[in-house]
């Protein structure tokens, strides 16, 4: 079966390119032959029922799957034309360029300042204390958190509310100046108000970074993304402009999922 790629997909520069990617956990195939282009400076959403492999696929994009010993990836994924699974690839550099935000906010049990400063410190991005302060401030501003925390940067990151923690994690990802940000259901642990704030933030960030967001909420995909890919049983069923996928799906399964027959 072949993925349906909507014909009227406008041509953009691809930031990342996956071709014929399959992922195995031991003998079990979790992702079956997925090919997709992630465009620069757009938001791409992966949707699909639970267990369809969308999160697994997301984690292959910055090699977070490496932490699972039995996981094995076939096919090629490139970042700016550069194969990220080649043996000489430095995953540390890769993850500095492709940041990630997780389902559950996971701030380090350190101060807010140190949470943001950690990445720039280990990558040697800042030359001195002033520059580091500046990076922390800019990152927190971009994440829309500066006004809320500027007076208590030494407080523990874990003391913030859930929504604030998630924006802290986004700020932490921004601080190392990535080109792509992967978001794995970033709002699933948050209340509606916090969710709205994160969605606003994604919209603001989309002009600056390529963003890939996995979500189980179709409304969210419709609200924040320009592109949508529908995953089902480890396969990518359909990929196109978000408006096309939601108004004019080609595949019956996409149609069924969008109209709430299953999920």
């Amino acid at each position, binding site marked *: 079966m072949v993925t349906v790629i909507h014909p009227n997909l406008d041509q953009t520069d691809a930031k990342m390119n996956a071709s014929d990617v399959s992922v195995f956990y031991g003998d079990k195939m979790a992702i079956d032959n997925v090919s997709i282009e992630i465009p620069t400076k757009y938001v791409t959403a992966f949707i699909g029922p639970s267990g369809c492999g969308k999160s697994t696929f997301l984690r292959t994009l910055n090699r977070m799957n490496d932490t699972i010993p039995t996981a094995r990836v076939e096919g090629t994924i490139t970042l700016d034309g550069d194969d990220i699974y080649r043996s000489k690839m430095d995953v540390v550099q890769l993850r500095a360029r492709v940041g*990630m935000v997780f389902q559950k906010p*996971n701030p380090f049990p350190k101060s807010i300042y140190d949470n943001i400063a950690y*990445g720039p410190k280990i990558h040697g991005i800042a030359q001195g204390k002033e520059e580091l302060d500046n990076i922390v401030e800019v990152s927190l501003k971009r994440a829309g958190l500066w006004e809320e925390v500027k007076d208590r940067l030494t407080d523990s990151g874990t003391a913030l509310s859930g929504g604030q923690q998630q924006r802290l994690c986004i700020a932490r990802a921004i601080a190392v100046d990535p080109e792509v940000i992967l978001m794995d259901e970033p709002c699933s642990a948050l209340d509606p108000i916090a969710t709205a704030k994160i969605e606003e933030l994604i919209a603001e960030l989309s002009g600056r970074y390529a963003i890939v967001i996995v979500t189980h909420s179709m409304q969210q995909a419709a609200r924040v993304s320009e592109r949508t890919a529908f995953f089902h049983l480890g396969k990518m069923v359909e990929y196109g402009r978000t408006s096309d996928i939601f108004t004019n799906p080609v595949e019956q399964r996409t149609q069924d999922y969008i109209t709430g027959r299953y999920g």
Partner: protein
Amino acid sequence: MSDVAPQQAPSDGMPSRSAAFEARLKKRYAAERRFKLTGLVAVLFSVLVLAFLLVTMTINGVGGFQRTELAVPIDFTEAGLTGDPATLSGPDATQLLEAQGLASVVEFYAEESLGANASAELNGNAWREVATAIIADPAILRTKQTFWLPSSADLAAGYEGEGSAELQALATDLAEQGKIDKRFDIGFLTRSDATDPQAVGIWGALKGSMLTMLVTLLMAFPIGVMAALYLEEYAPKNRWTDIIEVSINNLAAVPSIIFGLLGLAVFLTIFPNFRSAPLIGGMTLALMTMPVIVISGRNAIKAVPPSIRDGALAVGASPVQVVFHHVLPLALPGILTGTIIGMARALGETAPLLMIGMRAFVATPPDGLTSPATVLPVQIFLWSDEIDRGFVERTSAAIIVLLIFLLLMNGLAIYLRNKFEKKW
């Protein structure tokens, strides 16, 4: 818990099926109460044994911090001892005083004050305590002083109402004159082993224990933590890792005396000159403590949530950075708790140290990691074998000191555990 299960028989309002059912229910509740009581008794038994053990040791041990002493007034102005501060500050000051006849001076005044019978029961080394006092303050050579000096072990027994009738009578006699008394003996904490219970102290054993524990800590802690980090964070799942894991789990349960056999067969073959040295004792105990640290360390590391690791990886930290910047600092309190508990166990350990020869009679505190030493538990064991009754109290006193150290260590471990309980 108990609030879930109905504890009383149904009240009048409750439906009941039959008289037989009610009778049976009554029996069931009786059985319930009996069972609960048995449990309580079981726990209380352990608590009582603990209390009994502690009380016995305390009652016996309080006497161990005291010794029987005789009052000897010495008039140095007539004794004819000379000594200027310059010569008395040298290392040979005691010999100098001995050469001047300090021993006979002490004997003379003892006989004058106590009578010939009693002065014969003055401890043979009593003059050394006078010498120590003179060296500490040579000015007393121009004064008249009353010293409380240790009696012989036999007279001490007599004062307790044991031993020969003559000495008991002598002790009663002296007691009436106020010239014999059981006095607190600070020297017990500063002296070392001796053959005479009146002259023993635990400082030598305590210092030996500290040096041994130092070696154990310096070896077992880094190796244990590093092994725990490797096994929990990096080790690939393969046969080698399995063998390491099985080894560690089994080592944690191997009887301690087997480690003593290892120390005897391996360490003492490599270092035959270091028999009964804290270095060898510490190395043997380190092998025993290391698995404890590895196991508790792995549990502490496992308790650090994976999301922290993901977060650090996602901003581009390398696996080594993830562990040393995030996992280790968060697991450290747990690792320390396990380490302290392991060290407490090593501090109380006797059997393996007997195997490597730390049971020798060592009358001077060890001055280094390679000089002969004994440790506190072994000292307790050696004293417990002594026939002299005076040693019973001394043994209990040494046990009290050991238990205080262990209690402090365990208290610290519990404090750490409560203070740093998971914050995420």
